[in-house]
């Protein structure tokens, strides 16, 4: 399937392994990525906090660009925070035609216009709803047997439920669990899996921010997870990049590897750890790399 692909800023900045691994995984899932390289930052909620109309207009421009991608079935992102920020703006834009027309006036100079009703899905949602767990299961070359994976959803992709379309028919707040299982892994439930990583206040209250990250990582350690997986690069920054500092705040060793969702999928689909950029993490995913190396070795023998 062809998608208008919004990678976000951080996946091309401080988590380049996310963007890279998505590019590697997409062809294996028959996803054609048409990158929205003309689109700007979603604002991550901060621009909306500054000026609602500004955030709505900037995102309407992105939506309009996505709608111009010929043959694209929908827009896809790989960042929970982008999903949340865009969904918030889209809800306002879709709710009121007068407001939409007003916002579209700002896009007219570029010949752009956002039409109500864009479908915008995080890669996680696309995996379950478009590709399907059965198909995903059938594509697995290296089942994640014996790998204990803790899901870390991030806030923006699970709340508020109504805006994000979470209901009994679409239990999107369970999808990470379902994907881990489909890839053959063992899901580890722990207290912090749908809590906040603390990233939004890292510059405002660093200690509290790191205490949040450290507590969730500690919960996962206590639940004996081998690694975490997250669909949000901002969560990844606090959980992985900042983990050495979080260790100091919570006063315990954590050493918890945190994978991006495309990396976990890529591992199960047979990609190598280098291809997926696993060596780039601050906390080396040793448990994952050892595991995958041994399984590859066993398979080759």
């Amino acid at each position, binding site marked *: 399937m062809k998608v208008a692909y919004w990678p976000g800023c951080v996946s091309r900045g401080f988590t380049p392994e996310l963007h890279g691994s998505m590019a590697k995984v997409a062809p294996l899932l028959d996803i054609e990525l048409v990158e929205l390289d003309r689109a700007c930052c979603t604002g991550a909620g901060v621009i909306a906090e500054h000026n609602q109309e500004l955030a709505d207009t*900037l995102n309407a421009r992105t939506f309009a660009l996505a709608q111009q991608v010929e043959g694209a079935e929908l827009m896809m992102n790989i960042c929970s925070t982008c999903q949340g920020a865009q969904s918030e703006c889209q809800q306002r834009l879709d709710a009121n035609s007068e407001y939409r027309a007003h916002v579209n006036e700002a896009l007219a100079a570029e010949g752009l216009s956002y039409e109500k009703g864009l479908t915008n899905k995080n890669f996680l949602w696309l995996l379950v709803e478009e590709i399907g767990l059965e198909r995903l299961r059938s594509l697995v070359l290296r089942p994640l047997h014996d790998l204990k994976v803790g899901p870390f959803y991030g806030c923006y992709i699970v709340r508020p439920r109504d805006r994000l379309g979470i209901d009994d028919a679409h239990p999107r707040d369970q999808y990470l669990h379902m994907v881990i299982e489909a890839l053959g892994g063992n899901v580890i439930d722990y207290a912090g899996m749908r*809590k906040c990583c603390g990233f939004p206040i890292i510059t405002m209250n660093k200690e509290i921010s790191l205490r949040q990250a450290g507590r969730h990582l500690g919960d996962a350690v206590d639940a004996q997870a081998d690694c975490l997986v997250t669909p949000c690069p901002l969560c990844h920054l606090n959980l992985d990049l900042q983990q050495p500092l979080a260790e100091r705040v919570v006063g315990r060793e954590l050493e918890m590897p945190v994978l991006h969702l495309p990396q976990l999928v890529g591992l199960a689909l047979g990609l190598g750890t280098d291809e997926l950029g696993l060596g780039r993490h601050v906390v080396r995913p040793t448990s994952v790399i050892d595991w995958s190396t041994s399984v590859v070795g066993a398979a080759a023998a």
Partner: protein
Amino acid sequence: MAERVEQTPASEPPQATAEQFTLRLRRYDPHSGDAPYWEEHAIELAPHRSVLEGILQARDRFDGSIAIRCSCRQGICGSCGVRINGEPALACHTHLDVAARAASDGIIEVEPMGNMPVIKDLIVDMDAVHWTKIRRVTPWLLAKQPVPEREYLVPRESMVDITQTMACIQCGACVSDCLSMEVDPGFIGPAALAKAYRFVGDPRDAQQYERLLDLAQDPHGLFDCTHCFNCVQACPKDVNPMGQIMRLRRIATSDHHIVDRNNGERHEAAFTGLVRSYGLNHEAELLPRSYGGNSWFAKFRPAAAKETLSSLPVIIKALLRRKISPRIAIFGHRLRSADLKAVQAIYDRVERRETRFELNLFISGDEEPASAPQRAAESEHAGHAGSGGQPPSPNGAGGDEGSGQ
């Protein structure tokens, strides 16, 4: 329940058959010296009856010592806030069948709210946390002088704007699940900050600036909220506390230019400014600018330099692992010139307005098919949406971030 009512003539109330449900209650008496424990009771009630009624039946039939606070039993008084299957809720406003379906093992699990000490069983000490924080925000009008002989005359829209916060029934559900308070009990919290907006947004109040300055400078104040949406999800009355907090921030920073000691204003200015300059976020610049101010030279200012120094071990590790490339760290990434100009033109267009243009909370919702009340509300406030690039909406006529359910 709605289906049953629809199928039955109004003159004949439905006679729903009682069914058996099992409640798993968390029992705890701090004075006993015993640890908390779970206790199960089978109750019999019609499926549409409330969890509160179930708990009261268990108390009446099996154990008179089960403690829960309640009064109106119809979602108005806010007394019976608890956690049901791990989610904050009003016990009187949750149907037994719905709760049983949501339970992982079919047993309805009820426990006291979080972030507040337990007095006994399902009763928490609201005074120790919730009400203390409400008092913290001076929850009364500091009236503009002179007080008119009769009523104040204010624009209707400005009072409509604060009705969402006035819907709060002080049940504490948002406090219970606030993820900032979980790690920082000092945080003023969602309920109290929503209450603060009630007065900050009131045109009769004389101390908007002073209130905002106080909240912004508090290290556990306005900028301690992590955007986790838990309060938005928890609130049984759609008060949207997080949305109110964002409005407080917007007025503090954009209208009053309050530069707080918590980097809140600087972070917002840096983020917004970097996206304007680059079209994309420039993470390596965001950190020093959030500490030192929105300028390339910010990194050389003491606050930013100190912060960079403390993060040096992490930065070096990330560079060595090639997680961060020096090119990205120094130059960032930016949109192509034509697209960047288009983005900047949007900034110019929106930010040059004398007053911000924000949607009234009643406008947000499903456009089609619109319900009758919604249509009425939309036409009532249709002027706010405006057209022709001259939106007439007054500043502060409402934002709806986080709500719009």
